[in-house]
């Protein structure tokens, strides 16, 4: 198990953001974390990578307890994160952005080595021609790829991806999924939050469903999509579950879901 989350609870004032959530993530898999808006998915990420300490529970990464460590200590142990709301370092070049990941990631590379790694990673995510531009000048899709590049440059064991597909067009989604599979095949474990349902069902080896801060289901994408609790709490409509599994061409899809 690369990551074990044990009975984690987190409260913000009167809001119980996470309640007694536990799950495990085996090495080399893609785990999808889904749930309606406000279910606590991003909070879960924040607890895992140390942005917030949990009120109770433990987070164990590669056999070591990392609960309550500051984010930079977690990052240096090989746990990288791409944010939902992209956070490029606007006044730095694209290459410098990626170099930060390489310099301060798991390997803690030197300046010169980081520059070489940055160029390789940028080539991979298709941003090589933009290396010398300021990160602020990229469009949204490019910024998403930059987030991923920064995380990859740190040579992580585990990658937390928060909605990297949101806002991408279907071609870009397909390219991104392809890239994610290749990253997994190289041995990087991925935990991803995603709203593009068909994509997450398609790519995940295993799926966990959160609702109101509680884990309500887990299993293979097939199992989860057929779980009555998931359908009720999250999807609301059994037809929608079939739609998600079979793709948007399915006759089970309501018209509004088509082309999402």
């Amino acid at each position, binding site marked *: 198990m690369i990551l074990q989350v044990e009975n984690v609870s987190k409260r913000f004032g009167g809001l119980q953001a996470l309640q007694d959530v536990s799950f495990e993530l085996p090495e080399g898999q893609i785990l999808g974390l889904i749930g309606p808006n406000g279910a606590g998915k991003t909070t879960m990420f924040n607890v895992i990578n140390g*942005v917030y300490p949990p009120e109770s529970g433990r987070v164990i990464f590669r056999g070591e307890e990392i609960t309550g460590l500051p984010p930079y200590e977690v*990052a240096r142990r090989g746990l990288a994160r791409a944010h939902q709301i992209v*956070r490029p*370092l606007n*006044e*730095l070049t694209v290459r410098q952005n990626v170099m*930060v990941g390489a310099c301060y*990631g798991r390997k*803690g590379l030197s*300046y010169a080595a980081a520059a070489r790694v940055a160029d390789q990673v940028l080539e991979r995510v298709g941003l090589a021609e933009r290396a010398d531009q300021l990160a602020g000048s990229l469009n949204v899709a490019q910024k998403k790829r930059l987030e991923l590049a920064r995380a990859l440059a740190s040579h992580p064991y585990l990658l937390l991806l928060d909605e990297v597909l949101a806002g991408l067009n279907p071609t870009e989604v397909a390219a991104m999924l392809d890239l994610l599979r290749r990253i997994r095949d190289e041995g990087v474990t991925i935990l991803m939050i995603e709203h593009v349902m068909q994509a997450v069902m398609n790519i995940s080896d295993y799926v966990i469903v959160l609702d109101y801060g509680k884990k309500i289901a887990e299993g293979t994408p097939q199992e989860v999509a057929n779980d009555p609790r998931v359908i009720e709490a999250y999807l609301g409509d059994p037809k929608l579950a079939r739609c998600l599994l079979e793709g948007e061409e399915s006759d089970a899809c309501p018209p509004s879901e088509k082309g999402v």
Partner: protein
Amino acid sequence: MKPWRQPGFWIPLLLILVGGGVALVVRKDTLREMTFTLLMYVALASSLNILMGYTGYVNFGHIVFFGLGGYTGFYFISRHGWHLVPAALVGGLTSALLAALLGLAVLRLRGAYFALATIGINEAARAFVNNFRPFGGPTGLFVNFAIYREYGGAPQALWLTYTLLLITTLVAVAVSYTVKNSRFGLGLLAIREDEDAAMVMGVRTPRAKTIAYVISAFFPGIIGTLFFFKNGNVEPGDAFRLHMSIEVLVMIMLGGNGTILGPVLGAAAYERLRGYLLTSPLFKSLHLAFAGLALLLIVLFIPAGLVGWLRRRFPVLRRWLE
């Protein structure tokens, strides 16, 4: 990334060496005095730039390190008869130590809160020195004229002080370049752009910020010692002038916040302009109002400063103007 091969490294250093070297060749006292002030501001601006320009922490209290480090160095000269060189180094180290202690506390604050805290530190330091017996309290310290014998006379002592300041300025600018083009500096730039994102990427932000603060405080301590030794005395009113901090800040903004050449050019330009304003009958009591106005205009119209603007407007210049 060998700095000695980069024009961006050499240009500011050559400018300082030539500008500062003229006085050494010509050997005129008036030119030396003028260049002394100029070099002092170049070094103060370049050192503040490490915290403000690279790390993004606006510091209104930079002059505390000039005052307290200068006081300490001057104390060892006047009361214990130390030579200027070790005294200046101790002045620098005292400021660095103070920054290390303060940094742990105040660098937790961000944005305007940090800026306000730095003003508080300045006033606290002034009040402390005013009541600190070994530093002479409100009357301050002065040097006995006999002390110059060690240097071969007062003129020689002044020329030595000037040469040491020139060296300090060159070192400060070289350090500024080296920091910016290093792994450590990249971490600082990341903090400036988005501190939370930098933490998530693995930058140990509390440590990085404190080191930046320490480096930026070391040079003012040396410069303060040199400045007060040149003047022959020090008193609290001279050592902790808040408006000096603000003027150094204006210099950085004028030349280009976060660039290497910017603080050098900005300090030179502002200092020349102030010299003109102070001698003109119309503006002589208004030069601080001018500093405020200049800051307002820069922030509104060219927030990147002169060098930043040039770099953006003419990308070919980037290799030359760091």
